């Protein structure tokens, strides 16, 4: 009786859901690693997915990047002007973009666009028995559906982050020149003087981890759709929410890790 009561509590159900998720992700990641390095990789499908993930995300990422850079430049400019610190805007904007905002904002945008796309597309394939058909023909949905998407995200996201880094700083420069009346040459020079390779890579390298945080859970939620189209919507929502949370949480630990590495070097 007490056991049944505990089993029906929201907390208990939540814990079970979390354990199921991590168990499922663990198994899927293991299978992905095994099949990627042991079996055949469908490079044609990978290229198709790079186009879907990378190329099709370009407008969203560029708009987000340029507006982020412009807003940061404007806000820092307005704030620092009061203390005569307007000249520090290029330093601040470039460091924040390269270390945090570039990778995190780009990943969140990709989580929303690509994560939702993966979960809904794969979920619909489950509902319409296309995944069963792949298995029934003696082929693997992991190799034809999941691996190309994971590799494509792993390749595309860092490239998108690299682009964001440039575009965001360009946005900052535009506002610095037009609103804060900073000389563009001075702005660029300050960025070059301030930014080190460590600053760049501490942000850029995070994007490889973020790519996995987006692609693997999104495919997992798509593959675990069971009871019709209603669950496709739920899987899509879960994919976006969970991958965004994973990006934000892992960002803290990665920042901490790079901070330790910087201190040691």
């Amino acid at each position: 009786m007490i056991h049944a009561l505990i089993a029906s509590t929201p907390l208990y159900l939540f814990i079970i859901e979390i354990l199921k998720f991590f168990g499922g992700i663990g198994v899927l990641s293991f299978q992905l690693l095994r099949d990627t390095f042991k079996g055949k990789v469908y490079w044609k499908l990978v290229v198709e997915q790079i186009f879907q993930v990378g190329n099709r995300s370009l407008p969203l990422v560029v708009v987000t990047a340029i507006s982020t850079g412009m807003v940061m430049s404007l806000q820092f400019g307005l704030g620092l002007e009061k203390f005569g610190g307007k000249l520090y805007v290029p330093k601040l904007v470039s460091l924040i973009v390269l270390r945090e905002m570039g990778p995190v904002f780009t990943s969140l945008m990709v989580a929303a666009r690509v994560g939702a796309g993966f979960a809904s597309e794969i979920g619909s394939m489950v509902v319409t028995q296309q995944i069963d058909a792949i298995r029934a023909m003696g082929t693997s949905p992991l190799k034809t559906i999941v691996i190309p998407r994971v590799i494509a995200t792993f390749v595309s996201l860092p490239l998108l982050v690299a682009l964001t880094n440039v575009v965001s700083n360009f946005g900052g420069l535009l506002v610095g020149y037009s609103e804060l009346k900073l000389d563009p040459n001075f702005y660029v020079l300050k960025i070059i003087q301030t930014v080190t390779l460590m600053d760049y890579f501490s942000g850029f390298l995070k994007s490889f981890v973020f790519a996995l945080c987006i692609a693997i859970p999104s495919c997992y939620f798509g593959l675990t759709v069971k009871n019709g189209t209603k669950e496709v919507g739920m899987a899509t929502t879960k994919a976006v929410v969970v991958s965004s949370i994973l990006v934000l949480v892992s960002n803290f630990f990665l920042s901490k890790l790079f901070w330790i590495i910087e201190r040691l070097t």
Partner: protein
Amino acid sequence: MIEVKNFRKSFGSKEVHKGITFSVKKGECMGLIGGSGVGKSVILRSLIGLEKPDSGEIFIDGEEITRYKENDLVEIRKKVAYVFQGGALFDSMTVYENLAYPLREHTKKSEAEIKKMISDQLGEFGLPAAEGLYPANLSGGMQKRVGLARALMMQPKWILYDEPTAGLDPSNTRKIQEHILKLKATGITSILVTHDMPTAFAVCDKMSFILDGKIAFEGSLDEIHQDKSGIVKKFIDGEG
């Protein structure tokens, strides 16, 4: 030969299959019939390892497959074709790519050979102009025929039909029946899950009727007509 012994499966607390046993000899076509929800499709799916029974054995050509892992099932799945209810065509691929998929995956045929095979197959199924179309551009009947055509690309020894005529008009139903009969004439062994009794009577050699999780009747078409218990007749007449 396909043999199922003491197949048991539960979903949650509900025991759907309570020891199903049947066998289909080489060249035979068996109809698996029963009311909705008795688990006919689950049995069919289990025959190629898409589902696992809780207990029991499934023999395909003498190989017991219930303990096989996904990789072990590949060779079985190349020989057993599964025709899905809705066709299950890949909607991101054209008809040509759908038909080419199993050949590209499992054979080393050149693209010219694949093209020739697909062209012949679509001609056989009366769909010569469908090559470049996407599944969304096909009618329900055409989707089912393309699904059947795709299932046959690997020249299987066994075919499992899951409601191949569900939702089709009489003309398309007749076309599917003709295809099943043609395949049967080539000696292919098959199992047909259906609610469409005219089709079952037109193409099957024998039928197994599932009731309350067990095979309640198994016999030839003549035996159904002579069955004194009348349970199959009641089902067919909509009284059971």
